[in-house]
């Protein structure tokens, strides 16, 4: 009886907390609501800021399917974005986890110093790298290829740092035990380390996929071919004419936002755990 009373009192004391959280959650979610309603309205209504549902969903969708040139329409762009983003995420996770593992579990002062230097790369302005990287890719014959898309993004100091932090949870005793059993170093990584770091991979994967999916500036430089076009490029093509069909555009934006959201929803528990490990 008293316990129940106590609980309701706690809840009552939390009312201001709830109000603030609901307020902030509302602000966070409102633009999504707007995006969905806009996809159901015609262009004039969207430009005028109508925020109720309209009747142009089907027309917007049909226009969206027709938009673009042959080989570079909605489904092509979606497929390309998936291919590039998944490739980038997988390679990035592999390379950066390997490095994070190496930096933390084999650390000595040389590696620590090297790590400090690598962190500097976070501060390199992207504009500065565009032309040199383009030159490099064209010399390697990687223009318009997945290789050209992912190479500059598969090794980032942030990802290495994340894996390095999470590797602190990995007990060195296990490594020693494995070594005594005669397991080679690379097998320790694959057999012992990788399976216990699932949530780290999930968290890093979510962030990496989001970055890759939404990337625009570099893909625009390196993917000149129509058929290599990504989803953000497809949307940008619709968004910057002399006249813009906003209903159709928002329908496209919706298609562009759904994959990242689904991935976040599916992996959010592991995501939270992975980040928790990273800030320990």
């Amino acid at each position, binding site marked *: 009886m008293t316990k129940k009373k106590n609980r309701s009192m706690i809840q009552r004391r939390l009312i201001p907390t709830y109000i*603030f*959280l609901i307020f902030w959650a509302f602000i966070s979610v409102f633009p999504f609501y707007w995006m969905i309603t806009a996809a159901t309205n015609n262009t004039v209504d969207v430009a005028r800021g109508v925020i109720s549902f309209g009747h142009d969903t089907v027309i917007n969708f049909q226009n969206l399917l027709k938009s673009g040139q042959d080989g570079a329409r909605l489904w092509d762009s979606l497929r390309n974005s998936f291919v590039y983003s998944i490739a980038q995420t997988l390679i990035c996770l592999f390379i950066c986890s390997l490095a994070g593992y190496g*930096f933390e579990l*084999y650390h000595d002062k040389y590696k620590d110093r090297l790590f400090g230097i690598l962190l*500097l790369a976070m501060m390199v302005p992207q504009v*500065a790298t565009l032309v040199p990287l383009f030159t*490099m890719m064209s010399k390697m014959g990687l223009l318009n290829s997945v290789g050209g898309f992912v190479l500059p993004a598969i*090794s980032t100091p942030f990802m290495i740092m994340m894996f390095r932090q999470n590797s602190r949870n990995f007990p060195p005793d296990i490594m020693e035990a494995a070594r005594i059993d005669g397991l080679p170093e*690379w097998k320790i990584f694959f057999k012992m380390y990788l399976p216990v770091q699932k949530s780290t991979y999930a968290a890093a994967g979510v962030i990496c996929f989001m970055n890759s*999916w939404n990337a625009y500036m570099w893909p625009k430089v390196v993917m000149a071919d129509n058929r290599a076009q990504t989803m953000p490029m497809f949307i940008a093509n619709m968004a910057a004419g002399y006249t813009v069909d906003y209903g159709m555009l928002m329908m496209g934006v919706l298609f562009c936002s759904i994959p990242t959201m689904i991935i976040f929803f599916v992996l959010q528990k592991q995501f939270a755990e992975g980040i928790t490990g990273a800030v320990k």
Partner: protein
Amino acid sequence: METKKKGLTLAGKQLAAGWLFLTPATLLIFVMSFWPMIQAFLTSFKSGKGVNIHWADPLFVNYTRMLQDTMFIQAMKNTFLYLIIQVPIMLILAILLAQLLNNKDLKFKGFFRTCIFLPCATSLVSYSLIFKSMFATQGLFNTILVNLGILKENFNFLGTPWSAKLVIILALIWRWTGYNMVFYLAGLQNIEYSVYEAAKIDGANGWKTFWNITVPLLKPTIVMTFIMSINGTLQLFDESVNLTKGGPAGATMTMSHYIYNQSFGQGVGNFGYTSALCFVVFILVAILAVINLKVGDTRD
């Protein structure tokens, strides 16, 4: 003797393995980030455009030139204004939200967390379109304020220097608070609950607990988010381009946006000059990050 030799090779193997593991990532960063930066540094001593590029005379002309570049100085001021106002507000809000969400009696935690994180999963195009139309002269925000009687007539938010800056700051806070909150929330969950219990027994109130226990224990996370935010703000590009195009009259232009315009946005790029500007931004970010680390790092 025999065992010692074996031990050495084992240590050697381990050493080799350690270096081997971090080599791919390190090489990639050197080739994809540092090499372009070195090239930019060399280019910063050149002038002329396209095929007509040549060593500058005097060599430092691009660096002295920026001192007279009113647009760049304006962009620098804008960027630092964003930094000074937006970063602290955002991080304080993020800590506050994390603190509220870290209450074990709270219900619907997962729901709130998801909602608040959602903004940073949006694509840039959609988010900039949404903000632009909400703050348009005929947009939603104006309609609400006029109907409430706060404004007499529609106000041009994106066309007035101070309010355009404000919209950019609001947009940044909207987009990145949830992202930072996730890190704080994770940090808070690493703090043992018994620490708080002990504080309660000692009679510490909410604020005291927060300042004396939470903040010190969160310090590494705070330093990390600070560095990420400083870096993100000093290289701010997307919001300036997509929300305001740097306008009105350059009042919201950021340094990266200005550099981009000088390289790609307005005719044939002056790459010597922009390389010099890039280098200055790089140095600025690095200095601030080092200061941050020195202030934050009390461990060693």
